[in-house]
């Protein structure tokens, strides 16, 4: 199937701003799905609220557009009730890690077979550029007019510590890696997290004077490095890209099937 067969083309052009990285994520996602040869009926995409969540409107899968931060909780209900479906949950950084932070760590802890994609643009775009938990100390936002004193955290390390069994990070500059990591995340049996740094030139870019969309993508190239590279040792400020965690552990729905067997035997 061609990539364009996976989209609902009557909703294009999309609502994202010119230069936004989210369209690149959508592109990578569709290439991953196409490469896996999944049929549209096998995929359920669940999203929350925000710019990122609007991705569900554009894909011709079973799509569930839910509440801010709660996508993973809805997805858990869908997955546990129909384990044969593939669950993909794209979220923004505020969506996944501020209002949805608790659901995020607990979905990871359960190791339920869901693919979480965090489209990290370091801001709340839909509401106009307020600081998010990923904006970082010293950044500027419409709610941080005197500079942000909130510290950010590392999504990949958080996901790994919470128990996710596949954790990867890349950026919209590295489009082939986006598609490849999403493909591997979908294939992985267990809770997988792919963080994709995605530029928001409209709000984060303007407020922090980091240049145009192209400039921001250029920075993704220069400010990141493969995990464990020599460059990272020389310059610890570089952000690592790559697969941080990939391990096999019992998956939640499979474990629950064993509970059912045990309960039925004892009954």
């Amino acid at each position, binding site marked *: 199937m061609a990539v364009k067969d996976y989209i609902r083309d009557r*909703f294009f052009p999309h609502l994202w701003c010119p230069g936004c990285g989210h369209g690149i994520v959508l592109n990578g996602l569709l290439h991953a799905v196409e490469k896996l040869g999944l049929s*549209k*009926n096998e995929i*359920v995409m*669940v999203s929350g609220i925000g710019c990122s969540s609007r991705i*569900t*409107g554009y894909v*011709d*899968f*079973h*799509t*569930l*557009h*839910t*509440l801010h931060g*709660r996508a993973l*909780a*809805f*997805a*858990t*209900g*869908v*997955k*546990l*009730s*129909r384990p044969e*479906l593939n669950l993909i949950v794209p979220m923004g950084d505020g969506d996944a890690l501020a209002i949805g932070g*608790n*659901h995020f760590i*607990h979905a990871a802890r359960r190791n339920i077979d869901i693919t979480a994609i965090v489209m990290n643009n370091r801001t709340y775009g839909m509401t106009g550029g307020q600081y998010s938990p990923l904006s970082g100390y010293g950044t500027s936002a419409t709610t941080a007019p005197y500079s942000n004193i909130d510290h950010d955290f590392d999504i990949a390390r958080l996901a790994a510590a919470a128990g996710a069994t596949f954790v990867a990070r890349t950026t919209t500059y590295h489009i082939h890696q986006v598609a490849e990591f999403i493909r591997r995340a979908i294939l992985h049996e267990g809770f997988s997290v792919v963080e994709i740094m995605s530029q928001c030139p409209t709000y984060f870019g303007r407020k922090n004077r980091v240049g145009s969309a192209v400039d921001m993508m250029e920075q993704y190239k220069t400010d990141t490095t493969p995990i464990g590279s020599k460059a990272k040792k020389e310059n610890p400020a570089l952000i690592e890209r790559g697969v941080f965690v990939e391990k096999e552990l019992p998956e939640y729905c499979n474990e*629950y099937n064993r*509970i*059912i067997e*045990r*309960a*039925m035997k*004892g*009954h």
Partner: protein
Amino acid sequence: MSSNIKFLQGNEACVEGALYAGLDFFAGYPITPSTEVAEQLSIRLPQKGGKFIQMEDELASMCAIIGASLTGHKVLTATSGPGFSLMQEALGYAIMAEIPCVIVNVQRGGPSTGNPTHVSQGDVNQARWGTHGDHAIVTMTASNNQDVFAITVDAFNIAETYRTPVVLLFDEVVGHMRERLILPEPGEIPLVDRLKTSVRGGVDYHPYLPREDGRLPMSDFGGVHRYNVTGLFHDMWGFPSNNPEVVHGLLRHLVDKIENNVNQIARYKEFYLEDAECLLISYGSSARAARHVVESRRPRGERFGLLELQTLWPFPDAIVREKCAEAKFVVVVEMNMGQVLHLVKAAVNEPEKVFLANRIDGVFITDADIRNILRLIRGKGV
């Protein structure tokens, strides 16, 4: 037949009713005084191949049951006031996206953490208006185990019929009191299964296009039809729309499908109403005390009667008005500051004859409490 007679708690009677109705997915979070519902279902659901999950909080519990309901399962969650507050967000989503689900709230004293181990009926209005925006909702209750069982089955049937959340508003006394339950045989109480679309896969399908009777034949999510589900106002395909006609039409549909069926959804019981001069209106555990008053007065020739409401929302105004028409006094017996009192006053022709007999201190209202208030109402002093 003897094996069909159980001695158990109200919370367990609710579990029996839910399983009888076809429950196969539960998500919840522990909270007093509802926890027995979760504990029992963690044992019972996997025995029949169903799923139980303890989520990280009540926000997630409500979201998880919505997800599972969409895929075609009968779903339940159980909580009490503080958890019910957290569920209001996704409850509104279930109303908007028309997801059948049943939410048990075993009421305790509030506001806030309140009085976790004591009885209250303070969440009647929260069940109605806890989530934001105009909407309609169904809320039901019961006063004894047999009725808890039956009303739970009913709640699932109504949820499936109208594709709506149904709140089961029990209270601590009903939830924890142990008494007899006679389990009906399979098939004895009719069950409603979800209306499914007859449209084949690959054909343009309108999941959110109601039939003329307001019912929605939706296909299971993850099946042959791919569609969108959203908490935004949406068109008949389920895609977001802020077209004024679409918004108006959907909101009217969501409210009308419930409010236009108020009499079909109304459940109530009457005791000695034919010639009642003093009519008590009550629901949940307080109806037990009210019934005791009525049954102790009747042998003395005093014309007392009881209207026990089992459907609280949509409030059955016309039925209450009709039943109260001949009464000299109407006394609403409840364990809150008059949440149903105001509804009764609004429903009847002579609101000045409606009085309140209540307790709000976490102590179960007794027949003696009601008798004392009746003396005051009838001008006989204490």
